[in-house]
């Protein structure tokens, strides 16, 4: 497949302020590399355009970061290379356009998104990187996972939740529907402590979900002390990493360590979550019950008056406006417990993106490398 050269490849090239731009950071990372990265003297992912070589280069970069002899800082260095200060998200937009026009296969988009997840990019960087791919129907679901599943970095869980709710509606009736329902329910249960969402998580058929999503659901069930949740987490993590091990040998050891930390203190995790659930504004439910009961009241005080419409008093509207919503259920007053649950959720989501990235890369590998 061929696509036209990107418009920024004109003299001077955005990364040609240096004599030789970095395409692959050296290992171990030396001060020279760090300086080059901070000055933008590097070629970002798909910086040379949407081409087969670029897709291979991205895989090579990820492979190098996860190689057995790689420097521990190499992943952070590579994460910087996702975007370029002079180009911003233009390479990704260019790639998305190429995929949409048929000049590039969807697998290249998957490779790019996989790199962002695998490298452990933060929420905002990952969102910025993935946002450009949202208009591309072939990779939209994966781009939405990249962009919308997060929130721990800047405590934007309510916004993330709103985005997942919208995505769930968008994918209703498609084969992605169950996965997005599971993702939404995970946020609702873990962060808003809503038990109805736990029922949804239990009803989800794990075998029908992508491995990373099934792993996330299992992590949610781990919080309530579900039998076998830990074993399922290990099983789905192995499944997600299956295809990527040949190109990223260190990924298993890194993720094993992160996974072990997540499940290290089951009693403490469960207790923190329950403390948050207990600290919620349970009285708010009463206002909803009172007002819905009021609307079903039909006995009027006399036949001489016409029937009242469903409009409430201003006081009732204001009282109802105070209740409900993800924010109220998430931002509970028990700060200590909330902060620990938020932190745990952030760690879980970081691992989720690594697993999701690994699984995407694994599926695109054959197509790109052959």
């Amino acid at each position, binding site marked *: 497949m061929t696509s036209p050269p990107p418009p920024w490849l004109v003299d001077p090239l955005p990364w040609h302020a240096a004599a030789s731009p970095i395409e692959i950071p050296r290992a171990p990372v030396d001060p020279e590399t760090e300086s080059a990265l901070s000055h933008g003297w590097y070629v970002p992912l798909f910086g040379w355009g949407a081409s087969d070589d670029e897709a291979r280069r991205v895989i090579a970069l990820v492979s190098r970061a996860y190689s057995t002899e790689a420097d521990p800082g190499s992943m952070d260095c590579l994460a910087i290379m996702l975007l370029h200060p002079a180009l911003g998200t233009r390479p990704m937009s260019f790639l998305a356009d190429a995929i949409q026009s048929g000049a590039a296969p969807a697998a290249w988009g998957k490779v790019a998104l996989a790199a962002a997840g695998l490298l452990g990019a933060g929420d905002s960087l990952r969102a910025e990187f993935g946002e450009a791919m949202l208009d591309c129907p072939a990779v939209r679901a994966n781009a939405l996972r990249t962009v919308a599943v997060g929130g721990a970095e800047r405590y934007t869980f309510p916004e993330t939740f709103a985005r997942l709710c919208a995505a769930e509606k968008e994918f209703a009736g498609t084969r992605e529907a169950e996965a997005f329902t599971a993702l939404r329910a995970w946020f609702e249960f873990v962060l808003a402590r809503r038990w109805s969402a736990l029922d949804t998580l239990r009803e989800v058929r794990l075998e029908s979900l992508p491995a990373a999503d099934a792993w996330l659901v299992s992590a949610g069930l781990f919080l309530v002390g579900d039998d076998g949740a830990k074993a399922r987490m290990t099983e789905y993590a192995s499944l997600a990493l299956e295809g990527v091990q040949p190109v990223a040998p260190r990924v298993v050891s890194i993720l094993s360590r992160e996974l072990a930390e997540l499940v290290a203190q089951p009693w403490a995790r469960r207790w923190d979550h329950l403390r948050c659930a*207990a600290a919620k504004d349970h*009285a*708010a439910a009463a206002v909803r019950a*009172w007002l819905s009961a*009021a609307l079903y*009241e039909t*006995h009027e005080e006399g036949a001489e008056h016409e029937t009242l419409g469903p*409009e409430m008093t201003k*006081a009732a509207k204001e009282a109802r406006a105070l209740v409900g919503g993800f924010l109220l259920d998430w931002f509970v007053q028990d700060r200590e417990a909330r902060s620990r649950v938020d932190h745990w959720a952030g760690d879980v989501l970081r691992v989720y993106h690594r697993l999701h990235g690994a699984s995407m890369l694994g599926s695109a590998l054959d197509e790109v490398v052959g």
Partner: protein
Amino acid sequence: MSAFDDAIDALHESIDGWNRGAVPGTISRCAVCFDAAAREGDPRAAVGAAVARGLAGDHEGARRRLLEATARWPDAAGAYVAIGMLALRSPDVLAHAAEASWALIAARSLAPSVGCIERSLAVALAAQGEFMGALHCARAALAIDPDDEEARLWSSLMRLYFGGDVSAATVLAELPPEALLRGRSTAVWLGAVAGFYARGEFHEARVTLRKAIGVFKQGATPEKPLVDSARRWFRELRGFGAGVPMTGERWVRDVGGAQSEYVRTRAALSTFRDAIVQSGARAPSDVVTVLDVDSALGAMEARARRGMLEYGARLMVRGFAEAYLPMVACLEPPPLELLAAMGLVRLDG
């Protein structure tokens, strides 16, 4: 006779002839006379001119004049009392409750221990949702005048809905006949509706509501919002239910039903407690103990009860203010004692 005395006479004349509003011609004459007196530099006249305009329906103009008066004579309580009074007589009383509160707090600090100011402040704070402050002010008003039926009405409402004290329902139910003897309008029956309903006397509550709104013409457009507002509040009162939240049979409904978050959180905590007991030494005691779980259960219930009383008061007391105060403003002229607090009475010794 001075222009100010003429204005006072006109004001009292228009109040004596009050019929769902001041007598139009007389209140206009009153405003003109107050304007003439204000030109002579009398601060009371400036307040009177604004009040006359407010009673004639020009709330915005009255407010502007009163704010000018407070800027010019910041140490006189009259203008602040007038701002509070007119705000509580405005059609959208909840929107103006905060303004009424600050004005009446200022008036109280300039003229302490005045019963009608304390009582009006109680009403303003209740409409604003500051129930504890409102209860204090209503009690202060009752300490000054134990027969103040309006202060008793608001104090009982807050005891009932904010304090969860059902004995206040009896006071509410028994208050109107006494208040009517003192010349109050039928609007006072609305408080008794809350009393009867809280006691579970549903028929009496409906009959009492009819007494409260019966004076208004059926289908008359200008009065329809008042009637509908009272009926809406009554509908929400029925949805709220009799008695006090989280007591007796109300408990499960109040917390949102058997599948509610409250019930399920309690169940999850109980399961966790059992798990700790069964696990023996496996549950790390430095992380959680049975006592910790029991304490969380107790705290959750206490918080839920307190929260429900807050929400109940927010729904019922503010809803009452929304329905009751415009009815009072329509049916009753401003009380003479409030006019006296503004200096709008003739002191003839």
